[in-house]
């Protein structure tokens, strides 16, 4: 068998590892358009902040490819797939034939369509080269503007503030993290950022990036001008579906896959930020471009490439951030559109905020700011779709923990997918 994987990040590398664990004979080939391999993109903002050095960016051993006998084409972009001949073409003309192919091409940062975007000093943060370029510029930069007040924008701003730069975040919405949390939680998070010297401007957008060759400032849509020497666009990502759509695979928001992560071609699979999978909380298709989802999908796709019939349980949106010691976690549906269909249980403290979103007595989402201890236990209730009517009142309590759900574990034992749940209630009568 010839297994070919396009993409060298979380999903692609996990797939290569999973295949090799079970099949020592077949050939496994991995193609990545980046030369620097096996690094974790999620760590790039820590790298920019100066918290870690390049050596700590690896999420696998440096010798991973060698040790797992994976043939690599690094720094080579896959440009097309010939489904009839079952081969992948690389830039420069090399052709690689496959029996089973995984598309794990990931995503690209969204840009903004404003004049001046091409100037020197405008960045997105997605690849190691972006991070290196930003770090190289830092000495000559005093003021930085970050466009976007979502998770990506705030993470970028937090990293740069740790380099003692004057950072301003420009947010189109009336609040930060508008897709993730409501106004109350956003206020708590924004206030810790501002207390630590990050300026947040809401309800405004950048109209133009000004300067001669390099960035000198930003013109805002309210007429204000902002001096800055570096602009970081942190506005989310879009999936790299082009190679799939050109090959005639079914693509909607992302590459459409079935429960086996198989695309509309039975020999081609997709995983990670490029794949549109079943979302557990929303019960519909969605791209959840997140590290844990990419790892899970890489594994499940690989098992199916190997011929096992392994069903993917589905993805779940989830995020964890920590700004200046204030931890926040969000999961599933956090801002339901039709509020009437949901039950909301929440509690606001001085520096903390908890919100649980329920539908038909099942938790489908949560937001925790400050105290994140209950997150994991609640994540199990969400993932396993557990009826929580008997413990509902307890979930906002300060001491809500695993023990509080044990009666439910006892009652619905089989609904919890991991065996370890049952181990904990063996003596619980």
């Amino acid at each position, binding site marked *: 068998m010839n297994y070919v994987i396009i993409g060298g990040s979380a999903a692609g590398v996990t797939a290569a590892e999973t295949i090799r664990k079970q099949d020592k004979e077949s050939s496994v080939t991995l193609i990545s358009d980046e030369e620097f391999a096996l690094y974790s993109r*999620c760590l790039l903002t820590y790298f920019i902040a100066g918290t870690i050095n390049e050596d700590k960016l690896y*999420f*696998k051993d440096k010798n991973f490819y060698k040790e797992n006998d994976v043939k690599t084409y690094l720094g080579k972009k896959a440009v097309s797939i010939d489904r009839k001949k079952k081969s992948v073409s690389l830039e420069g003309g090399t052709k690689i034939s496959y029996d089973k192919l995984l598309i794990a091409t990931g995503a690209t940062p969204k840009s903004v369509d404003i004049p001046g975007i091409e100037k020197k000093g405008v960045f997105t943060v997605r690849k190691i080269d972006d991070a290196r370029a930003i770090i190289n510029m830092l000495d000559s930069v005093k003021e930085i503007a970050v466009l976007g007040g979502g998770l990506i924008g705030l993470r970028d701003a937090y990293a740069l503030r740790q380099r003692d730069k004057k950072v301003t975040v420009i947010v189109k919405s009336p609040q930060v993290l508008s897709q993730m949390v409501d106004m109350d939680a956003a206020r708590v998070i924004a206030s810790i950022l501002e207390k630590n010297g990050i300026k947040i401007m809401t309800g405004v957008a950048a109209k133009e990036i000004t300067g001669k060759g390099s960035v000198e400032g930003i013109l805002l849509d309210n007429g204000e001008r902002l001096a800055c020497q570096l602009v970081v666009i942190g506005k989310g990502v879009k999936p790299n579906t082009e190679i799939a759509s050109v090959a005639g695979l079914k693509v909607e928001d992302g590459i459409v896959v079935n429960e086996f992560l198989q695309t509309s071609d039975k020999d081609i699979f997709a995983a990670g930020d490029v794949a549109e999978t079943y979302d557990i909380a929303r019960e519909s298709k969605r791209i959840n471009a997140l590290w844990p989802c990419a790892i899970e999908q890489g594994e499940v796709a690989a098992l199916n490439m190997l011929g096992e019939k392994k069903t993917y349980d589905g993805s779940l949106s989830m995020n964890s951030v920590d700004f200046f010691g204030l931890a926040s976690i969000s999961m599933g549906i956090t801002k339901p559109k039709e509020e009437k269909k949901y039950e909301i249980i929440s509690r606001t403290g001085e520096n903390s905020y908890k919100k649980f979103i329920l539908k038909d007595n099942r938790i489908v989402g949560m937001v925790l700011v400050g105290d994140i201890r209950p*997150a*994991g*236990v609640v994540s199990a209730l969400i993932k396993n779709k557990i009826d929580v009517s008997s413990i509902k009142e307890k979930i906002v309590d300060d001491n809500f923990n695993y*023990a509080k759900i044990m009666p439910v574990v006892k009652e619905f034992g089989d609904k*919890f997918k991991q065996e370890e749940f049952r181990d904990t209630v*063996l*003596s619980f009568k």
Partner: protein
Amino acid sequence: MKTKDQKPKTKDIKIYCDITKCVGCRSCEIACAVEHSKSKDIFSAVREKPLPKKRVTTENIGAKIISLHCQHCEDAPCIKACMSGALSKDEKTGATLHDKEKCVGCWMCVMVCPFGAIVRDIENHIAVKCDLCPDRDEDYACVEACPTGALFTGTKEEFEKKIKGRKK
């Protein structure tokens, strides 16, 4: 109670809590913190800065109590969520290992641990979890310290046998 047994090193063996016997005395918590102190001596450990961190907690289930720690899940959600490569599986022993050098304190593991068994070490800004007492050759510190025999090291079959015997 097994106290002087060799520390178990196979996949099938884990630490169980017999809920009918746990009285919530927190001896397991103290023993765990001491085991993870620099001195490994309780009188010196209480003066260490930062204070050593426990990796086991006693929690109430109504009137009952459980001593709970990392279950070293076979298919561990924390390992899949860890984006820095700090969490990994020891294929031989089945232990879920945490490398504090690689941990950046992103709390992705806290977010997905179904047992709430990974907590934040705020002073050092890293995650903390049960590491199965790597410095010990004898039984785990929490199990050894348990005065009621609620904590038990063994296979599932052995534990089931133990709790069946107790009912007669």
